[in-house]
């Protein structure tokens, strides 16, 4: 079975070469038969990659330690779920997951793309084939997961204990669905440049793909943040670690793309910019893959460091980014510029959004790459962390967040800021009230905290105002409001939900950073500690045995005001013998939207234990807001207009399409 997987992977590589050449030649020469090769080849390539992935997953599930990759990253005593997720909990397997998703997305284009112009479809599949070929070659040449060991070891070396968590089942696949989803936007852009024109179907296809990729990337980042929060035991949700930035940069650029693609779809303006942004977003995804996979950064993600891999990915990076940007420089002038608009308009607001988001992306890029460049050039070693990003990223985000509620209320082509301001009066009053309440009534609230809460409420109320205004609240009868509300396009709900989610995330961040409290102390069994009105009693350490680890479990009782126990929190120090590694399992109890978080330290000689505990007000909103943003993207995808493969609508008279929504 393992050899079958290996052969399937080699065949998939060979097919990707066919996929990148034959349709391209067909499109150049106008040969229908050559262009038609693209579809079946793409689908077959996906089937072979899936077979290859299944073979590796099978080897993991069956603990086949004759496969070097399984031996290095698995153990026969691991629970089955971690055996399976361990398939991509290592460099080789995760790259296989990457190409699996790439070929899956290519297949979606091949199967559902029948309404695309034949040459565009052929070129898109060819570009997908190029990306696939590069990564198949990378896997086969430097990161082959199917290498056998002879003689086969009896026992494996275990998966890194930090990765033995449900988070591994969700975070990497979602993140990759996001990263790789942008490859479709990239392929469409490059295909448009090869053809030298952008037609209407381009925008209709690119926007839903951007939405899909953005939705998964949002989920992947939120899940990664929550995983780091509870697994690492440091209580932080974002560290400005280069690995985090690697996923955050495509997200920022992708958010800009999401907005500029709206302008392009509705007003056919900003064509060239949107195209460039699509190229840049996927380039940042590739850069992220390079930073994380090459071993230039040391982190839990750098599974193993092998210089050959770094150089190989750097070559892929240079080839694709350099190649696509050169093509852009040569061909962009051939594309026709789109419609004109007044600076104060929906388009103008979206341009402003793009200006802020791309500049913010650039500051994150500088902060992430500068230490690497400095070390390569001078050997000096610096670290760029939260203080840098607070000073650069923060000032860019504040004005952007403040103007978000205006955007959806401005009309296309020429907007009226005064009318939009009048509609936002209630939201503004609410934000000011929230600011005053925070500043005056909560002890120890700083000016920054008050501003932050006000801004979050402004975003939330602004999103709700948008829905209220568009359903005619206050201007038509209540029954009509309800009818209009139900009849609003799904994309209007999508926008409102995404902006609402942003406000919730901001509220969670401000709540945690400004009103959170923490204590570090040593405790003995029976002692109590009080933090922000919550009393905890330490019950002592109890040794326990898990399937592939032993642990000392600390049990804490949450006491209510009567002195009775109101539930327990446990935190543990785990020891994994296979890797001789200790991990901390933090104890978390969610109370409303807030969390009580504690983590165990070392045992002192006198039998007391170091305990660190945090009260994190509203912290769940940080990730909850992410979920709401994802729901917004899903809602937009359900919009009739974007439904892929709904050609029935297009049989209506041409005038129907031009109706403004």
């Amino acid at each position, binding site marked *: 079975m393992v050899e079958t997987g290996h052969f399937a992977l080699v065949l998939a590589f060979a097919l990707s070469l066919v996929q990148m050449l034959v349709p391209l030649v067909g499109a150049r020469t106008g040969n229908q038969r050559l262009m038609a090769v693209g579809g079946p080849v793409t689908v077959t390539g996906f089937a072979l990659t899936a077979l290859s992935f299944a073979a590796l997953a099978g080897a993991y599930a069956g603990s086949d330690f004759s496969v070097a990759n399984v031996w290095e990253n698995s153990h026969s005593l691991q629970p089955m779920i971690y055996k399976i997720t361990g398939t991509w909990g290592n460099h080789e397997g995760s790259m296989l997951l990457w190409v699996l998703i790439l070929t899956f997305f290519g297949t979606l284009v091949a199967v559902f793309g029948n309404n695309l112009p034949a040459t565009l479809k052929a070129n898109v599949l060819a570009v997908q084939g190029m990306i696939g070929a590069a990564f198949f070659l990378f896997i086969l040449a430097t990161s082959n997961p199917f290498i056998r060991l002879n003689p086969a070891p009896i026992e494996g070396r275990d998966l890194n204990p930090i990765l033995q968590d449900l988070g591994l089942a969700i975070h990497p696949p979602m993140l990759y669905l996001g990263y790789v989803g942008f490859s479709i936007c990239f392929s469409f852009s490059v295909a448009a440049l090869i053809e030298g024109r952008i037609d209407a179907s381009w925008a209709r296809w690119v926007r839903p793909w951007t939405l899909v990729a953005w939705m998964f990337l949002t989920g992947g980042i939120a899940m990664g943040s929550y995983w780091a929060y509870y697994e690492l035991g440091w209580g932080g949700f974002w560290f400005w670690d280069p690995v985090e930035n690697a996923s955050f940069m495509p997200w920022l650029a992708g958010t800009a793309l999401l907005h500029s693609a709206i302008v392009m779809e509705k007003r056919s303006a900003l064509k060239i910019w949107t195209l460039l942004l699509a190229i840049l977003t996927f380039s940042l995804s590739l850069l992220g893959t390079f930073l994380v996979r090459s071993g230039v950064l040391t982190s839990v993600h750098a599974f193993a460091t092998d210089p050959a891999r770094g150089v190989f990915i750097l070559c892929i990076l240079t080839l694709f980014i350099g190649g696509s940007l050169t093509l852009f420089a040569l061909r962009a002038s051939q594309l026709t510029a789109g419609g004109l608009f007044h600076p104060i308009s929906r388009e103008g607001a979206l341009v402003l959004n793009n200006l802020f988001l791309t500049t913010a992306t650039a500051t994150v890029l500088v902060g992430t790459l500068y230490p690497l460049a400095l070390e390569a050039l001078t050997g000096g070693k610096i*670290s760029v962390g939260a203080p840098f990003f607070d000073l650069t990223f923060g000032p860019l985000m504040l004005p952007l967040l403040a103007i978000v509620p205006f955007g959806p209320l401005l009309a296309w082509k020429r907007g009226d800021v005064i009318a939009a301001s009048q509609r936002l009066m209630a939201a503004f009053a609410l934000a000011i009230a929230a600011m005053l309440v925070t500043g005056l009534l909560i002890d120890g609230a700083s000016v920054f905290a008050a501003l932050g809460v006000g801004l979050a409420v402004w975003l939330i109320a602004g999103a709700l105002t948008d829905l209220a205004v568009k359903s005619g609240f206050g201007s038509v009868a209540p029954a009509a409001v309800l009818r209009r509300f139900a009849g609003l396009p799904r994309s209007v709900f999508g926008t409102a939900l995404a902006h609402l989610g942003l406000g919730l995330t901001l509220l969670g961040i401000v709540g945690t950073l400004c009103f959170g409290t923490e204590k570090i102390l040593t405790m003995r069994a029976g002692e109590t500690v009080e933090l922000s009105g919550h009393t905890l009693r330490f019950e002592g350490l109890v040794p326990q045995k898990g399937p592939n680890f032993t642990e000392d479990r600390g049990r804490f009782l949450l006491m209510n005001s009567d002195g009775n126990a109101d539930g327990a929190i446990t935190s543990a120090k785990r020891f994994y013998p296979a890797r001789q590694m200790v991990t901390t399992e933090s104890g978390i109890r969610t109370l409303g939207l807030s969390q009580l978080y504690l983590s165990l330290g070392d045992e*002192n000689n006198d039998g007391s234990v170091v305990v660190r505990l945090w009260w994190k007000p509203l912290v769940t909103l940080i990730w909850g807001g992410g979920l709401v943003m994802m729901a917004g993207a899903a809602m937009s995808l359900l919009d009739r207009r974007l439904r892929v493969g709904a050609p029935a609508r297009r049989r209506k008279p041409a005038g129907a399409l031009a109706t403004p929504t």
Partner: protein
Amino acid sequence: MTRKQKRLSVIVAGLAFLGAAAGLTFYALGQKASYFYMPAELATAGLQPGQRIRLGGLVESGTVMRGNGATVAFSVTDTQKSVKVTYTGILPDLFREGQGVITEGAFGPDGVFVADSVLAKHDERYMPKEVADGLKAKGVWVESKSQ
């Protein structure tokens, strides 16, 4: 304004915005980035009092002192010089004597390095890259036995 003037003013405003962002970025890089040192490099580093740095090296064997509540004291060494470090909090799980570590903080007036964060390697297979590179440069790098 004519269309040309309008376009020009938009471009100028955009460039001014980008210029401001770039200026802020470089100012922040100068002010907010913290440099990495090994103990022997400190003498020539010319640190300002209270300047935040990252100090890396090996945790010197036999120097880890626990017991004063949650505060831990230990020495970080590059085998040539060693520096006393104090830290209040929970040490990372992989913190061990004789292993690589990076601490971040500033020197107190008494010459003791007060760390507010301690990073140990994530995995038993390697030590923090800065520490490994520093030790290699000093010629005291020992290839680990397990790998």
